[in-house]
């Protein structure tokens, strides 16, 4: 169990580092938000799931899973609110439009 937890945490740290590199490299707000979304989804999932596995079966595991579910529900809403504000305030993305 502990070995599996360590593997999950290291994998999550890898994704978190990739997301940080993405926030540095990508060109504009809209593209950077994809990198932050990568952090929220897979990186946080792997790290927190590894910690839950390390705790073993019990109340602590369920509590960490509650935090995980909360992150999965709330973070898309935050990203969408920020990007909608950016779009309405007139920040144009470097993108081609089609309808």
């Amino acid at each position, binding site marked *: 169990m*502990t070995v599996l937890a*360590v593997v999950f*945490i290291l994998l999550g*740290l890898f994704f*978190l*580092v990739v*997301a*940080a590199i993405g*926030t*540095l490299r990508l060109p504009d*707000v809209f593209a*950077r*938000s994809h990198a*932050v979304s990568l*952090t*929220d989804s897979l990186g*946080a999932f792997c*790290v*927190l799931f590894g*910690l839950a596995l*390390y*705790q073993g079966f019990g*109340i*602590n595991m369920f*509590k*960490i899973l*509650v*935090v995980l579910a*909360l*992150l999965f529900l*709330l*973070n898309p*809403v*935050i*990203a969408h*609110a*920020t*990007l*909608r*504000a*950016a779009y*309405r*305030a*007139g*920040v144009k993305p470097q993108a081609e439009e089609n309808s």
Partner: protein
Amino acid sequence: MTNFFLVVVMVLSLLILVYLYRVIQGPTVFDRVLGLNGISTKAIILVVVIGTVYDRVDMFVDISTGYALLNLVGAFAIAKFLEQRGTP
């Protein structure tokens, strides 16, 4: 095992520094808001890892839950304000 978790804490802190660069440097306000969102996600993970180090996860998880909810309210307030003001 404690050493491993301390290394995890250090890596997360360095990642927070990277996002802090984005907050300070970001060309528009929304880059800064996005960087703050990333920092708060890291902080939530960091609190849970610190709780694992101190072996008091049941208490620290409650703190991180409150942090996640406060982050939602704060991000909404900033987004609504900037949306109404209308300038980047």
